[in-house]
């Protein structure tokens, strides 16, 4: 599966059970990224996506178990460490800002198992620069 995660410049993801940030244009980016394929997420994340009517979103608390090989998964407050075997690709969106954090993204993407295949930048609706990085699993 392909996991999509947003992080700040210190690899933070959440603070006090709340997302650090959000961006309308980023959501549109993610919907486009899925190209009509199913996008899995939990109810917490869906609350933010529910106005994106054209997306094919599957909502479940157990979406990381349910998602198939080709599926996209938007992850905000889930532990992906138990699913690394299933993950073929990680798409990281970086806010390029610093927020408080108590939950971090700590997959070591430099451990030789991941290859950075693409990097791009774009302007969000409230973020000057969002960086998108795509990591493919090598082995």
């Amino acid at each position, binding site marked *: 599966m392909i996991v999509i995660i947003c992080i700040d410049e210190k690899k933070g993801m959440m603070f006090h059970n709340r997302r650090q940030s959000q961006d309308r244009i980023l959501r549109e980016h993610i919907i486009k990224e899925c190209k009509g394929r199913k996008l899995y997420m939990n109810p917490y994340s869906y609350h933010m996506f529910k106005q994106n009517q054209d997306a094919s979103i599957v909502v479940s608390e157990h979406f990381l178990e349910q998602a198939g090989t080709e599926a996209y998964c938007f992850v905000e407050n889930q532990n*992906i460490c138990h699913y690394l075997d299933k993950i073929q690709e990680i798409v990281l969106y970086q806010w390029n*800002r*610093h927020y408080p954090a*108590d939950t*971090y993204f*700590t997959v*070591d993407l*430099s451990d030789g198992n991941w290859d950075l295949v693409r990097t791009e930048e774009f302007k969000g609706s*409230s973020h000057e620069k969002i960086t998108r990085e795509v990591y493919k699993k090598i082995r």
Partner: protein
Amino acid sequence: MNYKKIRGTWIIFIICCMFLTSCSFVLPEKTAQTGQEITNLKDLPAYSEGAYVELNGNIPQFSEDELTEKSFETYSDLDDLQRCGTAYANIGTDLMPVEERGSIGKVKPTGWHTVKYDQVDGKYLYNRCHLIGYQLSGENANEKNLITGTRYMNVEGMLPFENMVADYVKETGNHVLYRVTPVFEEQNLLAKGVQMEAMSVEDQGEGISYNVFVYNVQPGIYIDYKTGESSLDQTDLEQTDTQAEGEIRGNSRSKIYHCPGQAAYEQMADSKYLVIFKSEQEAENEGYRKAKR
């Protein structure tokens, strides 16, 4: 329960803890420093690591009748020593600035000194810190909204919390109740820190909710809070000299680093997740956090 059963239970518990901490996900902590809930500012632990501690379980202390969808901003009058008091606002998009920030250099908050140190980011120890950040309320040189704060407090402590609120308000159009209270001890001219509380209004804290104390400190610098005078921290220098003999050992899986003398430092030497850094700064630049023990 006999001794063996108790010991067995503890072993299982410890193994579970070890397993959990080796996962690629760091679970929320109660406070950045102590792991204990702080309900009173008098019980604040002395600064040791981390720019802030959580107060009252991270729950802000606003009452229900304060929740309003109308934007406002209020600033306390300066006290007899010309020190700032609480700044309180309901942040909405209508309060946010549409222009670049103007000059604030003419304001000299209490405890102000223009002083430089090589190890401080940007060299200057002190910044004029907005209680309510410019990006939230657009206040420029308002003396009731500016205190003397270290670069560390400004950038590592307060700014991330302001950013979180600013993004939320811009993206949702909702309001955030926002209160920043500088904490001065006795007649001190320099605040020991600020309490920051925030709560999103329309969703009743679902999007934003925090209550933290941010320390007005600068690692490596000793500060006299009575006057704001400062000097290089000799204790820190001695510690640095001792540590200079040993490398910093990071764990690439947990993203935690260990300094010579810390509990798991020796153990890390044989770890397959060992990453070596020349300095703590280098480790932190790579997104690592210092081990608590």
